[in-house]
């Protein structure tokens, strides 16, 4: 409950910052940038996996926020709004590079069951495997996992960002989790 109250307070502060950005405050823009820089950059990295390109996209996202600030009506959280912009910019960047975003397909791997997935997850030394399995996910599944587990967003918020029905988001996270389990189990077993 306390963390929710903190989150709500932080969201109010972000909305206030954005209102000042809409009135042309460079100081508010800098503060808004610093507040969201890490989260937007991590999101861009999860899709683009290239720090230089992700930094360019981060810059584009924040510039777009500057341009569009006066159109923000407060119907969603500022973070949700920024992630929506980020998603569009990432997709633009992928198209520009001739990469077609994959929707749902993940490489098929045999189902090795929960126990071996748990084994594979145990221990910090397995971070490389987790990273590798995340990279093996389709773009849509990796995006869903990032927003659900890194950002801790609700399925309703994710649905607004990815512009898909809530049911689709729940299904994506479920299938992504299954694919991760399979991948981790296989890596754990074959090591």
């Amino acid at each position, binding site marked *: 409950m306390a963390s929710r109250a903190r989150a709500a307070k932080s969201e109010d502060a972000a909305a206030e910052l954005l209102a000042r950005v809409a009135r042309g405050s460079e100081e508010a823009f800098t503060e808004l940038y610093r507040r969201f820089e890490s989260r937007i*950059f991590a999101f861009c990295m999860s899709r683009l996996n290239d720090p230089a390109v992700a930094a360019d996209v981060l810059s584009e996202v924040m510039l777009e926020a500057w341009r569009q600030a006066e159109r923000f009506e407060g119907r969603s959280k500022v973070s949700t709004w920024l992630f929506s912009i980020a998603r569009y910019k990432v997709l633009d960047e992928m198209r520009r590079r001739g990469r077609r975003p994959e929707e749902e397909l993940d490489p098929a791997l045999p189902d090795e069951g929960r126990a071996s997935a748990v084994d594979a997850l145990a221990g910090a030394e397995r971070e490389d495997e987790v990273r590798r399995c995340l990279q093996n996910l389709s773009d849509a599944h990796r995006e869903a996992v990032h927003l659900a*587990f890194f950002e801790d967003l609700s399925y309703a918020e994710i649905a607004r960002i990815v512009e898909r029905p809530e049911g689709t988001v729940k299904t994506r996270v479920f299938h992504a989790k299954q694919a991760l389990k399979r991948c981790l189990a296989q890596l754990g077993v074959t090591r």
Partner: protein
Amino acid sequence: MSEASGPQARELQALLPFYVNGTLEGEERRRVEAWLERSPEARAEADLLATLRERVKRVSSVEAPGELTLRRTLSAVRREQRVRLRTPGWVKLAVAACLAVIVAQGVALYRTAGGPVDGYATLGGGVEQAALEVTFAPGATELQIRTLLDEADATIVGGPGSLGVYRLSLGGGADAEARARTLELLRSRDIVTHAAEVAP
């Protein structure tokens, strides 16, 4: 999962990740809690998801690019502000009209050169001749830019991005030598602050 076969159980499984990340509320939260209470397998699945969430947080944490990117973004913001403040409304309309003419000429040239005539091709995508990227000095006028593009036999096919970068297509199926000559020409002009070759 023994009871994880019907539609209701599938729904609970789909809700579980959002219970684990702490965003599930109200009736949905109560239903998942009741399921966890009666099913050891559901609890094991929740534990797995919690571990997975923690690992995803750990591997997805990246150091943000920091001050350099902030400064670059602020420069772009200031550039836009200057243009907004300095440019009267009628000039914006005139520039838009000029750009529309340039764009229309580009499309006409592209079609004359054998581009698709039976479908509409956007300027940002599908034009395979895009070969150079260029940034103009903030004080460059539309006339100076147009004159230079005429001289270089180049057409704007994309941009400007947030950093003011335009993509140019070169006429007549320019080969590597012609692209190099055009690059040299662009770089020799004061109104060009950056010119480089990009992959088509």
